[in-house]
């Protein structure tokens, strides 16, 4: 039982790492129907900028957070202006896929040149010795990631449902042309959503970096897993991201222990295929009806 509990804890912690990254996918999808495939790289940039602030400039971890967030916003807006806007303008269905991937690769190369190619250690702001909770171990940093993920979910839901700006976002998603006619600056809304998305990715980067490792290549696998989480949970639901993350995380750790560590990634991906076949909008997603 204790083992199962430990597996569940680690699974949840792992799932939350995926979830905090997955929020970024959701934010851009919610306005423009596009995704930033450079999400993993936005995460990596956030983590590395955070590392520079904390390690080289001696800034306090908590004080570094807003700076990193600001950097993320600028980076996200840049991606949108350079990569996504031209594609949306010509109503290209796929242009943004290539351009966000390309920008991601460019960011990775830039990071390799600035920060080197090795994985670096991110000093943990919390004690690194584990806590015992009901007989199984958790790291304080893992609790912080879980807290961060929940907070981000609440913020996104609150923003979308309660604020006028959130309503503009929802309106833009539902019908871009109608929203425009109603006086919403849809272009700005989309830019803003990209800025927000990269900001969340940067936050996520600083949040998880003490647990993973920090380096130019950290985003590749994590970005992909987070994408799977976003698909499983549904690209339109904050709740879905959390649940999707937990499902994928626990599936990985339990399969690793009870079946074989060689197959630990399989059940999550099978689930992904299953969700795509049965409920393409995701477990919690609202299926959008597109009138053509």
């Amino acid at each position, binding site marked *: 039982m204790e083992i199962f509990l*430990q597996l569940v804890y680690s699974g949840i912690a792992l799932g939350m790492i995926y979830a905090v990254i997955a929020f970024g996918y959701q934010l851009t999808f919610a306005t423009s129907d596009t995704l930033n495939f450079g999400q993993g790289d936005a995460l990596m940039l956030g983590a590395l900028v955070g590392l520079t602030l904390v390690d080289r400039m001696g800034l306090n971890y908590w004080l570094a957070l807003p700076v990193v967030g600001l950097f993320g916003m600028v980076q996200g807006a840049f991606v949108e202006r350079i990569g996504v806007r031209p594609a949306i303008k010509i109503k290209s269905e796929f242009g943004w896929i290539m351009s966000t991937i390309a920008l991601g690769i460019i960011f990775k190369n830039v990071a390799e040149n600035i920060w080197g*190619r090795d*994985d670096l250690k991110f000093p943990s702001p919390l004690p690194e010795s584990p806590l015992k909770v009901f007989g199984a171990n958790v790291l304080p940093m893992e609790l912080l990631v879980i807290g961060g993920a929940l907070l981000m979910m609440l913020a996104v839901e609150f923003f979308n449902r309660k604020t006028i700006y959130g309503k503009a976002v929802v309106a833009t998603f539902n019908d871009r042309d109608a929203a425009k006619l109603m006086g919403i600056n849809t272009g700005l809304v989309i830019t803003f959503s990209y800025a927000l998305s990269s900001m969340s990715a940067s936050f996520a980067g600083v949040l998880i970096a003490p647990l993973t490792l920090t380096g130019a*290549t950290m985003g590749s696998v994590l970005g992909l897993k987070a994408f799977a989480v976003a698909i499983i949970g549904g690209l339109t639901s904050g709740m879905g991201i959390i649940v999707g993350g937990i499902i994928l995380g626990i599936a990985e750790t339990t399969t690793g222990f009870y079946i074989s560590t060689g197959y630990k990634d399989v059940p999550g991906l099978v689930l992904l295929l299953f969700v795509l076949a049965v409920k393409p909008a995701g477990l919690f997603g609202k299926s959008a009806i597109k009138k053509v």
Partner: protein
Amino acid sequence: MKRRVHLTVLASLMLATGFSFAADPIKVGVTGPYTGGSSSMGVSMRDGVKLAINEINKAGGVLGRQLLAVERDDEAKNERGVQIAQELINKEQVVATLGFINTGVALASQRFYQEAKIPVFNNVATGSIVTQQFKAPEFPDNYIFRNAAHDSIQAPMIVEEAIVRRNFKKVAILADSTNYGQLGREDLEKALAAKNVKAVAVEKFNIKDVDMTAQLLKAKEAGAEVVLTYAIGPELAQIANGMTKLGWKVPMIGSWTLSMANFIDNAGPGGEGARMPQTFIQEPNTVKRKTFIEAYLKTFKPKNNRIDSPVSAAQGYDSVYLLAAAIKQAGSTEGPKVREALENLQTKVEGVVTTYDKPFTHDDHEAITANIPIFGEVKGSKVVYAYEEDRVKGADIRTKVKKAATADKQPAKK
């Protein structure tokens, strides 16, 4: 004085015969991962090579020609390695290639050199089959050489350390899913079987995995007293961090990659005490080693005066001197002649790892034998000698044991 006369004669000869190409540099390919998880090995190897090439060039080069390193980053990817091999052979027309950190890349790329009859010097890659790919009788001549401790040396050493020296009964094996990890795991299992031990848990993980809970819990539940590893730095650090998290601390003994800087730094206190076979430890206990370490630190200024991967730097450095000696002896840069010279080196080459006295023969392309590596241990974020007796005897050069002596298969015993 004599040397100067020699050079003058050579120079005037060249002038007289009007060989304009004599001044062309000798191109040597240098390939390894300078980016990604195994870059600390690749970069240290490259820097070691550069250091040796600079020294040789300052002393007048080889055959009166300067050596020129053509560096290429293979990113630890097999397909990149293949592209680079073709580029170095066909476009750059290198005389030989030094490098290969990753066994998989070496195996994928080497056939091009073999076909082009250009010698390859594996100065870091350790997979046992690296030098066995083009063995006689199928291939009359093998162009693949190595001056690194291959896995069939390392695996028995690791097992000897765990089972005999430290008397552990239950062992777990954790290896990554790459060629390197899985071939190493096979070697470990073979070496364990020779001691009539079966691992209580054999687990696998992928590159970039961030959670090792499942693997470690399995090892813990099986009652493992020691974890044997075959992986590279970042994931090894995740194993050490995972142990800290589970509050389960058993010794880690593994392949030489446990000496990588990115393991030591990322594992922090969790990595202290990890032990691994090493051909070279950053300790200036001979004159040659002292000058090498000082020159390296002065030229490349690594962080905290610690070479990121001392073994890779030392082996990279030595590989250049071995190659230069062979070219000098062959009096030519043609592949077959250089190969023949390597297989029958007349001069002793003094390297930092050991002194190479006839390191290769036609059928034996391994310069390092089981008696050369010793155990290193991570202590205070540095790799030091694990055993006091090895440290005391550190200055004694252990040279290659010739065929007759290795026949009794005595792993790791000195």
